[in-house]
């Protein structure tokens, strides 16, 4: 009978997940979850039949001396008792694994629905969905692009980021919940990935460095987006500081016009001075943020040019990126 150990379970790494800048797969290409449901049902049915056998063995083991006597009868009862215990343990393992398989069908179903949601999100945000993949936006932006064009480009990259984040979340959720199945296999069937042969697919070596350029270009694009957002925030802060300073100047003017006491006027002059310092600081911060945003945009453009040059040299297009399962 199977010997199930209780060694600590060590997770085994699968292939790497989606890389930022690559097309994001949104097709579910695994087994139909209904088949996994059926598999769980088969295991539960088998568990039921093993339980019936265990009960029959228990009845044999429990036959009284009045019905069945002698040393040989005792030996037979002993055999039946041992087999009953083995069958009862097997029933528990089959039932436990059956439950884990049923749960796993739900995991796969949720993953499939999540990929549908990912596709819907990409389409709603205006990204290109082709060959069951969400394509990253165009990397380059002409130097003389209008502000509208820049804004649209940044919106596209924000949309791609949202899809990427969703793809990562789907994958992590699925992997985390799949650990339950692997744990159940170790506990109930005594099989483990590192000992009994894992199904592991690694990306082809030749494509890794090319993919790195794409990843770099995409990272630079997102840094440009974030720097632009920071510049917007700095400009908004400057506008608030200016309004506060102008309001304080208005108040000072009213105090002077109404002949307010000298100490009130002095206090207001001091308040205006503080607010002017705030405005100066906010102004310098906004200039700095604008300069940073311009630098990040230039870096993004440079990384995109490198990528396009490499694509041109290798005669490969973005669509030749290696398959990724998510």
């Amino acid at each position: 009978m199977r010997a199930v150990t209780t060694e600590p379970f060590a997770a085994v790494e699968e292939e790497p997940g989606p890389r930022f800048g690559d097309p994001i797969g949104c097709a579910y290409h695994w087994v139909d979850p209904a088949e996994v449901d059926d598999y769980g049902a088969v295991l539960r049915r088998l568990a039921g039949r093993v339980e019936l056998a265990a009960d029959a063995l228990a009845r044999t083991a429990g036959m009284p001396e009045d019905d069945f006597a002698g040393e040989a009868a005792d030996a037979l009862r002993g055999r039946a008792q041992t087999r009953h215990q083995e069958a009862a343990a097997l029933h528990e393992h089959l039932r436990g694994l059956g439950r884990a398989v049923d749960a796993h069908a739900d995991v796969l179903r949720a993953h499939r629905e999540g990929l549908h949601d990912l596709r819907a999100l990409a389409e709603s945000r205006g990204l290109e969905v082709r060959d069951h993949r969400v394509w990253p936006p165009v990397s380059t932006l002409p130097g003389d692009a209008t502000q509208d064009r820049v804004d649209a480009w940044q919106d596209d990259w924000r949309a791609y980021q949202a899809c990427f984040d969703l793809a990562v979340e789907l994958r992590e959720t699925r992997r985390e919940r799949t650990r339950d199945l692997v744990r159940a296999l170790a506990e109930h069937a005594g099989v483990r990935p590192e000992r009994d042969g894992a199904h592991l697919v690694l990306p082809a070596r030749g494509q890794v460095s090319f993919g790195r350029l794409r990843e770099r270009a995409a990272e630079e694009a997102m840094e440009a987006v974030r720097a632009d957002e920071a510049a917007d925030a700095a400009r908004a802060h400057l506008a608030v500081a200016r309004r506060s300073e102008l309001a304080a100047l208005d108040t000072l003017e009213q105090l002077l016009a109404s002949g307010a006491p000298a100490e009130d006027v002095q206090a207001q002059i001091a308040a205006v001075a503080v607010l002017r310092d705030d405005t100066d600081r906010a102004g310098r911060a906004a200039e700095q943020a604008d300069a940073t945003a311009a630098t990040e945009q230039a870096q993004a453009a440079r990384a995109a040019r490198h990528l396009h040059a490499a694509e041109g040299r290798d005669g490969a297009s973005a669509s030749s990126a290696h398959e990724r399962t998510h």
Partner: protein
Amino acid sequence: MRPIAINQGALRGARAELESACADLRAALEEVDHPREDFPWRDLLVAGVRGLVDDAGQVARRCGSIAGAMDDSVLDFDQLDVMVGRAAEVAARLDGVAP
């Protein structure tokens, strides 16, 4: 030494239950169909299930074997009845008594 069946009815009942459970289990084992399409850890899952299915096959065989041992003891007693009957006939003839 063979086990002595005192209550043959009870023994026959237990044996029949074991044989029926064994047959049902064998039938369920025939129905096991592993998923063919791929998914993460499919191979590991199928390897694990195959192991448990082998164990269930062993349970079926052992049930059959125990049922067989009980069967032996029941038949032995029946044969003993027949042998005792024949011995009684022979003894009666030797004594010149009509059977």
